[in-house]
């Protein structure tokens, strides 16, 4: 071997880092290459893992860090061997609250409650304790209520690279279109009169 064995090095680094993951900064520091080059390398490596069916592992990119994880298709085998704590399973109330925060952050409790139509203290406590949300600041104006936002742990728990990867909200435009048609229909009816 006369060249640097990037794949081997990165695999050993990722393995050691476990679910703490490695940032691009750490990778480029250890490999002594620039971050852009490191990023290219990581993309190559991600590709390599994904395209090789002999590999049971994949590289996840989550909230700015890379981490190794088993491929989904092997979950059936792992389930025979490993206890699943199902620890992240959230109540409906918590999931709804989390959805509102994820899409509308930063947002105050009152604003969340307006959208949900119910008190939301308990779900906020649960989500905070599960480190899925945190206080990210204070709202202007009277009360200076806490503003909530999602955490890196949130991205990890839902397997997201970043917030931009959140599924698109059920589009309002469709509803609007629908409403528009209705309105058109209404107008048409009137014209006929």
């Amino acid at each position, binding site marked *: 071997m006369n060249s640097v064995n990037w794949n081997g090095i990165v695999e050993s680094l990722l*393995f*050691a*880092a*476990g*679910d*703490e993951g490695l940032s691009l900064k750490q990778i480029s520091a250890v490999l002594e290459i620039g971050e852009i080059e490191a990023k290219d390398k990581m993309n190559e490596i991600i590709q390599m893992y994904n395209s090789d069916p002999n590999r049971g592992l*994949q590289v996840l990119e989550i909230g700015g860090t890379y981490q*190794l*994880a*088993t*491929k*989904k298709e092997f*979950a059936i085998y*792992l389930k*025979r*061997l*490993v*206890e699943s*704590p*199902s*620890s*992240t399973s*959230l109540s*409906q*109330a918590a*999931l*709804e609250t*989390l*959805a*509102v925060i994820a*899409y509308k952050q930063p947002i105050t409790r009152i604003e969340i409650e307006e*959208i*949900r*139509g*119910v*008190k939301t203290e308990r779900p906020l406590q649960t989500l*905070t*304790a*599960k*480190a899925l949300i*945190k206080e990210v600041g204070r709202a202007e104006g009277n009360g200076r209520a806490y503003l909530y936002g999602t*955490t890196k*742990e949130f991205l*990890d*728990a*839902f*397997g*997201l690279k970043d917030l931009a990867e959140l*599924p698109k*909200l*059920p589009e*309002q435009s469709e*509803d609007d279109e*629908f*409403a528009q048609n*209705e*309105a058109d229909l*209404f*107008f048409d009816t*009137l014209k006929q009169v």
Partner: protein
Amino acid sequence: MQHYNVKIDAFEGPLDLLLHLINRLEIDIYDIPVAEITEQYLIFIHTMKELELDIASEYLVMAATLLAIKSKMLLPKHEEDEFDEDLDVEMEEDPRDELVERLIEYRKYKEAAEELKELEQERSLMYTKPPSDLAGIAKDATPEKANLDVSLYDMLGALQKLMRRKKLQKPLSTKVARQEIPIERRITEILTVLKSFRGRKNFNDLFTIHNREHVVVTFLAVLELIKRKEIQVTQENNFADLFVESTEAS
């Protein structure tokens, strides 16, 4: 009038309940028949009251809102006498508008919550490992008492990772060994004990092994024996110990 066998805690609040009613009645959310939906909503609330369940104040506020909208809808519409230049205005002044807007907004996040749930399930199919302990590798990198740039959230986050991580099952055989105790067998055992004892035996003494499964199976066996009238259970007075005896022996 139909009755609802739905628990109020099956709903995430009045908006959720309204969406449920709208779906159930196959109503167009943009053209809600307020009278009908209000009636259904109130029936629901009344049922809850009869069942003496706590009804969160939000449900009552919504009931009032619905009634207010209903009464506004009943007011004569002057606009209809006017010309169609006012049509836009008329659309906006529909007393249902605000509620419809809230319902649609809420529905958006309710659906988003479903998607999150799916993402979470998918994520749970991917297993990770804890960071390796590299104590042997880095020799004397003694960290000094520096200012810590960590928050409680960081700590909770780390804890969550730990909780989420799946744990290797000990020996695979423990799972296999934990087979169920057949109730029939336990029934026979209990009968044998009672018959040989010839008299009343304290109910608590039947629970010889203190693991959950054994306790549950024993309890079920006792219930079955009572049903079959093979044993008799007596109690002197409230809160006193229960005594069990075989009906055959007595």
